[in-house]
């Protein structure tokens, strides 16, 4: 099987497993919505403040819940399963990219559900031409999937995985968070989103290169 066919198969299998388990749709997305609602309750009734912080809260919630998506049970292979994939000759990079692709799709769904909810709960003053900010947002989603998958693989099989992986991801994902959130701010003041698209794209590419370089030793470490 060729490399890209392997990537597609791994992503398809992950999405199929998620469709059956429903972990993201029935648990992570509702939990994310609750988190989105918790901020205004904590902030008080100052609607101007709530309106101002809406997009930022959306991105923080997305960053934190990305880990829930990457660490979902349906994407956690047991050692025996990993060994079988290795014996079958599945390229470690194809496995990593396939898993990242599946996570990126699920993060996209998460963002597509939570963004309208954020608009509903926070009524932010969206700038003219805000749909252009969807480009860095989508690119950020891809980057988040990459870094979260890397961390999930790095901590695979460890007792403290669910707490340790977010500690690794959050600092590394900051350029993505800055790029996505500042694009909207830039539009609000009539600026260009291009620098932020460049920042997020460069981060995505850097993460892709890192994935390519460490895929094989990562598989060896987690077997």
């Amino acid at each position: 099987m060729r490399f890209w066919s392997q990537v597609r198969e791994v992503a398809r299998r992950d999405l199929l497993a998620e469709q059956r388990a429903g972990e993201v749709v029935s648990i992570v997305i509702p939990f994310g919505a609750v988190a989105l609602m918790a901020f205004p309750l904590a902030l008080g009734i100052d609607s101007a403040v709530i309106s101002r912080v809406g997009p930022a809260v959306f991105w923080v919630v997305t960053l934190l819940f990305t880990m829930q998506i990457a660490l979902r049970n349906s994407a956690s292979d047991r050692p025996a399963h990993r060994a079988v994939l290795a014996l079958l000759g599945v390229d470690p990079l194809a496995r990593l990219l396939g898993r990242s692709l599946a996570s990126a799709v699920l993060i996209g769904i998460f963002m597509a559900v939570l963004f309208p909810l954020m608009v509903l709960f926070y009524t932010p003053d969206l700038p003219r031409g805000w749909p252009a900010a969807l480009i860095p947002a989508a690119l950020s989603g891809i980057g988040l999937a990459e870094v979260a998958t890397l961390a999930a693989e790095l901590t695979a099989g460890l007792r403290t995985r669910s707490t340790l992986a977010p500690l690794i991801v959050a600092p590394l994902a900051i350029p993505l968070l800055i790029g996505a959130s500042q694009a909207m701010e830039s539009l609000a003041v009539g600026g260009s989103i291009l620098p932020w698209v460049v920042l997020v794209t460069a981060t995505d590419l850097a993460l892709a290169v890192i994935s390519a370089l460490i895929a094989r030793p990562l598989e060896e470490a987690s077997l």
Partner: protein
Amino acid sequence: MKSPTWIRILQLTAAAALAFGLVAALRAPVDAFQGEYSRIMHVHVPSSWLAFLAFGVTALASVMWRVRRTRRWDRLAASSAELGVLFTALSLLTGSIWGGGVWGTYWDWADPRMATTALMFFIYLGYLALRRTTDDPQAAASRASLLGIIAVIQVPLVYFSVNLFRGLHQGQSIRPDGVTMPTEMLMAMLINLAALTIVYVALLASRVHLMGREEGREAEAVAGAGVVAPRLEVGDA
């Protein structure tokens, strides 16, 4: 069992260098605007540089562990990361105290250097946490070496953040095109840099040695004093 003589000599040298650096910092002239707070810079700037050095050593030792698979490289990577976290914490603490006096705020989100340094601190806390998740040193080294290599990309981001983003932090005072501080202050800072570098080397040597002894004792406890623990790798230090 005591530490080897050369480590004890290194520790004494470090203590003497630290005292000398303290005297140099106290005798250095103060900045006209910052006043006495400018003396904090003689600890803050070298601490930041040593944090970069320590994380660079961690990355290099991680690469070497992946190439050679000998315990000594893993011990070096782990020990240097611990010291990097220590120096980063010292840098954040001294920077915050200086900021409180000079900027009027202990923390400012508008300053990219502060924010990126704090993020670097947390990444290496994650590195140290990753090492503690398994009792098998080989497994810990295998995973940690990968994170040690990935995490070092934060170092240039922190260093160049003052050039890349606008913020409160001043730019580099020592640049290829010249130095923007008086010679007396520069000398005091370089003396403290040398002193803290000796402290780093002394602590690194002590920690690597201690880690080796800890591993030896654990192997002895598992196998019994009369039994030699099996060696899984060639060239173990």
